């Protein structure tokens, strides 16, 4: 089974975010980028399938700062082939553009299964999975938290609100939007990633013309004004605990 996992880097939301001088985009100067957490689950799910039933796993991403680390980490987890896609990503790239350009590359790779994160924290024009599936002519199922492969049949667990799961079935090739792998993404030691840097190579492919039709134009980005704001208690833990006890008593839960 040939599994392709397209992944991307997204802003680390733990860091402070700011808007750049244009007022229409995030300021990338101080932005720390990390792997989209859902993509990390997609990699894990691909590796689990490889371990379970045997598969060849290719992880690919756009050639932006940090991509080598991301790809070598995937290799350390068990990915067999690493690809980075060259293009002009200076001013960022949206999902419509990327899906369209990536489809031509993925078509040549002839995947049986494409796994990608169900969403990313900076998506503004939908998620990439369903768009990519449409350009590839594959069916798409998203919000997937479990995948079983048997021959050409793929059985998935899709999540609905309230903990309800629906089991759906599709024949390959199929594209799945991963919400969560069946187990948390595995940890790999830095030493193993370094080893991959020495033994594995990253292939480079050029993306064709970038066409952003279908993605909205951002007029303005801003940080939300708080509609309400919490009454802040002391930062000192003991003092905060004191006040919380008083509050719990007032609320009748203590």
């Amino acid at each position, binding site marked *: 089974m040939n599994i392709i996992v397209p992944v991307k880097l997204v802003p680390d*939301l733990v860091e*402070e*975010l700011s*808007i750049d001088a244009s007022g229409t985009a*995030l300021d990338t100067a101080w932005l720390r980028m990390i792997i989209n957490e859902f993509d990390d*689950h997609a990699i894990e799910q691909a590796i689990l399938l490889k371990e379970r039933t045997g598969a060849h796993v290719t992880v690919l991403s756009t050639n932006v700062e940090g991509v080598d680390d991301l790809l070598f980490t995937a290799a350390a987890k068990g990915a067999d082939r690493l690809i980075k896609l060259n293009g002009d990503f200076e001013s960022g790239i949206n*999902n*419509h553009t990327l*899906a*369209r350009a990536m489809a031509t590359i993925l078509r040549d790779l002839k995947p049986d299964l494409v796994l990608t994160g*169900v969403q990313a924290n900076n*998506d*503004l*024009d*939908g*998620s990439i*999975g*369903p*768009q990519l599936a*449409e*350009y590839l002519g594959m069916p*798409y199922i*998203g919000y997937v938290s479990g995948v079983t492969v048997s021959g050409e049949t793929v*059985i998935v667990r*899709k*999540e609905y609100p*309230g*903990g309800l799961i*629906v*089991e*759906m*079935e599709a024949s390959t090739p199929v594209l799945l*939007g991963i*919400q969560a792998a069946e*187990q*948390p993404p595995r940890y790999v030691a830095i030493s193993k990633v370094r080893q991959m840097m020495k033994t594995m190579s990253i292939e480079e492919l050029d993306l064709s013309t970038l066409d952003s*039709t*279908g*993605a*909205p134009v951002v*007029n303005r*980005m*801003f940080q*939300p004004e*708080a509609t309400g*704001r*919490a009454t*802040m*208690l002391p*930062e*000192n833990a003991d003092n*905060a*605990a*004191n*006040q*919380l*006890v008083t509050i*719990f008593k007032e*609320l009748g*839960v203590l």
Partner: protein
Amino acid sequence: MNQDIFVAIEHLRGKVSDISYIMLAAAHDLAHSSGGKVVAILLGHNVQELAGNLKADQVLYADHSFLTDFNPEAYQKTLAKIIDEYKPRAVFFGQTSIGMDIVGGISAQLGLPLVSSVRTIEADNKIISQICGGKIMAECKLPETTALITLVPGGYKPELGQSTQLPPITSIPVQMLDGLRIKLNQYIEPETSDVDISKESLLIAVGRGIQNQDNISLAEELAQAIGGVVCASRPVVDQGWLPTSRLVGKSGSTVKPKVYLAIGISGAPEHVEAITGSDVIIAINTDPAAPIFNIAKYGTTADLFDLVPALTEQIRNIKG
């Protein structure tokens, strides 16, 4: 293109989802400025009665046995054809595990613009999206051609999309749906567990800030001391530190306790939408910019690893 605003109604196992009413409320706002009608599109099989309380000027009803349950392929095909035929000003989808499965494909298939994570639509057709876990808002202009919009909850009250008056229903033909590559096998009910967090009155919720599985015990000790129940946001459950039955958020439970103590939870929209029914939210997070402080009544940036044990200790002393 006409000026009507379409809403792709979502329903699951015989019940219209709240997001459908929220979309209808938003659609009425937009229709007011476009001068068009609000049209609800209902797909299903023998579900005409679900149209009953939709606040819409018209319901287009597509009935087919292949549309009985949500099937991304069948729903996408059917909706794409309707949108292509009617060419409305805009179409709303839920930013949900149903809407998001099909809207991207429709956008790619029909070449229509798509704006996601939309919370509100303001004057002059400014579309406001909420991204980066609720930390950033983006403003786009409503595209000039038929626009596909996915809506998150929070911007409109569902009641504004409900009506006691039955809207006029028009049955529309469904194209051939043979040869579907996706099929539904079965529903798997949520695992029954010791507790039902949607019914608890005091919830101690832990998020990514708890850092590792061993630290969950800090929350459990506090819950035990005060008489509450531990629940969690998505990252904690995905790590396998707590079972899915304790998940609060989009794929988990919606809760409405008297007190919701959020420990190390940033307040991403998918989580916030499930806790707004709480009487009082109290947040502990070292990041003063965490969105959770915008909906919490009380908050502190104290380090949870100092505060939670101190709080447990004080409560134990009081209770003896």
